[in-house]
């Protein structure tokens, strides 16, 4: 790893991503107040007591930001990880098996992708009870179709290589071919894709929460906080801009890191 020679943006991106992760992990222990405690007036400005001011019902905004980071990142992380497990497994399986298995899986994914994701999620979430499990499952299911496409394409590229044919001729099982022959050779682009899909998941979850079908109050999350405080803009209160900025900064930073990873892969490919 030659991170020392990575570009400025890559370094900056990684530092910010690490900061977010730290906040999510240890932040709640350091947060000055509980996320749902009403501790002050409505939309109080920044002060020594409330570092980021208070929100629309007088809760400490900093504390809610910290708890919101944990909720948002945790759900996005679970959903992305789950979607990658499904997507990679089914995508590789389709590519390696070929024939009707590939056809069935691919057409199913086409069908799923024909629905606009947000609408599909809204319909499903308005029918089931909304909790963390349903949120993660819905997001992962929708996202796994994208992962399926990429994983299948990568595995198609690799599975025509002769070392995969050699493994087939030896009589190796499909699972061996997927995990020992193909996965190690497709890992870098998949990791980069993971980063991208993670930032999409954060945005998607925030959109759902903004529309009221994501994380349910009083639990804090960025999308919900933007909605709660959106009215404040009319009165010159900036509370809703803070979670929005957190969202933007995280997305940009993840993209910086992914760019660097992709650069590294393509330069490796060039050198053969």
């Amino acid at each position, binding site marked *: 790893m030659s991170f020392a020679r990575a570009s400025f943006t890559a370094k900056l991106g990684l530092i910010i991503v690490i900061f977010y992760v730290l906040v999510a992990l240890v932040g709640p222990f350091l947060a000055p107040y509980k996320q749902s405690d009403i501790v002050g007036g409505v939309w109080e400005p920044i002060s020594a007591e409330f570092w980021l001011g208070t929100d629309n019902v007088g809760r400490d905004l900093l504390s809610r930001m910290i708890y919101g980071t944990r909720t948002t990142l945790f759900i996005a992380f679970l959903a992305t990880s789950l979607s990658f497990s499904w997507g990679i497994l089914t995508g590789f399986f389709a590519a390696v098996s070929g024939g009707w298995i590939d056809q069935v899986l691919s057409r199913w994914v086409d069908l799923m992708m024909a629905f606009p994701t947000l609408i599909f999620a809204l319909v499903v979430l308005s029918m089931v009870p909304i909790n963390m499990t349903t949120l993660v499952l819905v997001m992962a299911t929708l996202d796994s179709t994208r992962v399926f496409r990429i994983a299948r394409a990568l595995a198609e590229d690799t599975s025509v290589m002769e070392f995969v044919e050699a493994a087939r001729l030896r*009589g190796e099982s499909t699972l061996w071919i997927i995990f020992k022959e193909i996965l190690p050779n497709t890992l870098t682009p998949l990791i980069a894709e993971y980063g991208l899909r993670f930032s999409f998941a954060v945005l998607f979850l925030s959109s759902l929460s903004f529309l009221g079908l994501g994380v349910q109050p009083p639990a804090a999350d960025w999308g919900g906080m933007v909605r709660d405080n959106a009215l404040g803009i009319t009165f010159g209160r900036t509370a809703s801009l803070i979670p929005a900025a957190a969202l933007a900064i995280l997305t940009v930073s993840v993209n910086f890191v992914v760019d660097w990873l992709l650069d590294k892969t393509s330069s490796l490919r060039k050198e053969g």
Partner: protein
Amino acid sequence: MADNLITVKDLVIKAKVHRPGEKPFDVTIVDKVSFTLEKGEVLGLIGESGAGKSTIGVAALAYARYGCTITGGQFILNGQDVLEYIGNRLLQHRGGQVAYVAQSAAAAFNPAHKLDEQVVEVAITKGDMSRTEALAYARELYAKIGLPDPENFGQRYPHQVSGGQLQRAMTAMALASRPDLIVFDEPTTALDVTTQIDVLAAIKEAINDFGISALYISHDLAVVGQVSDRIMVLRHGKMVEMGTTEQIFNNPQEEYTKELVSIRSDIKPETPRSDVPALLRLENVTASYDGTLDVVKNVSMELEAGQTLAVVGESGSGKSTTARIIMGLLPQREGTVIFNGDPLPPKLSSRTKEQKRQIQMIYQMADTAMNPRQTIRDIIGRPMTFYFGTSGKERERKVTELLEQIEMGPEFLNRFPAELSGGQKQRVCIARALAADPEIIICDEVTSALDPLVAEGVLQLLLRLQRETNVAYLFITHDIATVRAISDSIAVMYQGGLVEVGQKSEILNPPHPPYTELLLSSVPEMRVGWLEEAIENRTMEAAGN
């Protein structure tokens, strides 16, 4: 000197190497090479990959490939150093004074334009011809180099003509601007032997008739010898030896040249047929990829235990497909494959683990045949674990033993394929096949991608391993010299069918069926004047013309 067209003095070309984690450093790929070339003379450049021969060739165009720089020396053409050309002068030089013929004509032609457009383009922009003149001249050239229907040939698109024709069209393109020098960079390497001979003859005639000088680059000494007046032998960017073709063939001075000239001259004695039933028997096998067009038709052959059957033919003859049928990758439509007396199930998935173990395969490209993310230990050790359940110290010992058998040490255990040379990679693939302790190894063009001396080493290794383990080889190749060197029996294939099959002595000695005759007589021999004789004595036209 006034009568020299070209004088090259102390040419030095360096390449920048970027290794992860290290500062970029320079490697000398052409080291103080000097030569002269008279008008109308052909100089052959020969050497293995990385010898710098192509780099010298493109230096004639005052060009260095990406990452390379010409750092010293002169390349004087008609009294002027071409390395000093810039701007328009350089543009005039490239294609105008010096033309280049590349190895892969299929990749060098733009598939979206007709041949005529591409052939006359340089003549119009760099020469002083009008479009009509250039087209007329192109037709003349088509006729000259033996292309069919010269009047209309140029109206076709690149995909509408054969590989041999395309290679000749590229020669026509090079000649079209009436250059002083043409650089031929392995122009026949990608062609079948039977096609190569015609292209070689066309190139030679064109060079002679137009009095053009040429640099002819190849890794095949016999080919270079047919068209060159003099030959320069290169290795690691340095000149090893330079002399007339006659002298290099008959009286080489340096050790390296002697090795190149004597390659594959020791021949394995043929093992006579025994009465034991054959280990592997193909009976009237027919197969197709899409169910309509048969790519292998009614093929029968036999392989005895511990012997080598060479399957020989040009591209498209169905020899690799035959291998895929035996391996179970392409189930045959008709006929049977009998192994050890029992018919093998056509489909790989219906075969038992034991049946899979007994027939192993080695590929042409060792690079893609090994998982780049596995160590040599895992690559060789996996078949042992998979078939015999060998693990731990026992496996370690056996892998080390195999590495010794293929003349590599235990220091390779932890390396990855990318850290090996081409020859070493192929050796590891051989070891992987042996690790399964098979009865038969199918070798699909295993030496075709290797340099001659490295290929020689791999063949010697295969022969030694056969003596030690009594494994049988089904050896697929287009190279008759290899067939001569290692086989006991030979099957000749042509357009999916079997031409003849039999013991080596029967097949290689006359009388031959016409196709075998054509194939055998098309293999370049290392003597001056072979090309003319071969063309003279031909009785059958090659299919790829």
